[in-house]
């Protein structure tokens, strides 16, 4: 199963890229474990996870080809 993960705002600065393709992660919980291990600065970052454009609150399973967006709050005006 392959998913596309996109990082928004300052999260892309943390990861150094706007997005990445991942294999072997099957839900939002395993995704967080993986990206927190790869990019420890994400552990303390504030963000919400959207799976296929829907913001989720509980652990959510992925389907093959899912698009996952990680969205932080912005303060600027």
């Amino acid at each position, binding site marked *: 199963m392959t998913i596309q993960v996109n990082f*928004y705002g300052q999260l892309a600065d943390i990861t150094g890229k706007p997005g990445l393709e991942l294999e072997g992660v099957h839900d939002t919980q395993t995704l967080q474990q993986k990206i927190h291990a790869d990019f420890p600065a994400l552990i303390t970052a*504030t963000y919400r996870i959207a799976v296929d454009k829907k*913001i989720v609150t509980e652990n959510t399973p992925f389907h093959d080809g899912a698009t996952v967006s990680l*969205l932080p709050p*912005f*303060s600027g*005006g």
Partner: protein
Amino acid sequence: MDKQSKGERYHRQTILEELGEQGQQKLLSAKVLVIGAGGLGCPVLQYLAAAGVGTIGIVDQDVVALSNLHRQVLYITSDIGLLKAERAATKLQQMNPDIRVNPYELRLDNKNALDILKAYDIVVDASDNFPTRYLVNDACCLLQKPLVHGAVSQFEGQVAVFNAVGEGGKRTANYRDLFPVPPKEGEVASCAEAGVIGVLPGIIGSLQAAEVIKLITGIGQPLVNRLQTFNFKTSDWLTLSFQPLLETAATQPANPLAFINTVYDWTCTSGNVAEINAATFQSLLAEEGITVIDVREIGEQPLLNEIEHLQIPLSQLMDHLDTITGSTIVAVCQTGKRSRQAATILANAFHSKKIYSLQGGIAAYLLSLQNK
């Protein structure tokens, strides 16, 4: 100005069948408060004034700086050093003398916010910091006012409509349904620190003005329960959907008194909230001055008979802050989720106390007792 020229001013929009004279009348009768007259606020104010929004309030305590001018297009070089709210009001009034513009040259805080917001139908958050964003959101929820949110960072922006009247008269999602807990200070950089491309707040602010006009006239579908994002570099638009959450109310002041007692400037520095595991919790219990609060609803099982504690459900915590003593407070719940929210509320209320949330909740604690 006579009636004919008044009609001519708005002619190109009143000939739109869905808007018409009736829609124009709604715009002229509407009262909109814009918080912040900076990068976002300028286009919001310009388009609302041009469209004939009858009463526009502008809250901003800042003066125009040279570094504002690449994005704050209402101001000119000779405005540098002058108050933004006053300059903006003068220019909008010159652009459209039919409308009323009220400048508020002050910093919005929890003492003045409710009085100012009360007089308006719709609030626009065009501010540039998290304390103001959470304060405005909570005030709008208390006063039942729709809030048009806009925010930018470097090359990206966000727009949404919060707390509008949805289906069946229920309020739509608000900022805390999206981001319940403010980020820690320094986690998210401001425009001054991170920079912003000048045209970006122009785009996002224009979208905010569009949402205000949709709310007033009833045309189309406002961005309720949705967050729209724009990326300047890729020109990608992304609209995410989200829902009101039951637990959000517990993170917000429930009444004007609680609102006045909420310290918003502090919410960005939740430094004295920490999560502790069951083992650390056990060793803390031996210390002096520790207060354990079970924030579950009354009657939730299993009961916490093993240790002395207060029982204050999360939904009532705001109203019972005065009953809490001790120098160290540990919030506990079933799984550690509600207690985390409770800890944030407690940290807001008590700056000198140490505040903890029990990770994994009572389930984890009871398990650790068995394994002892």
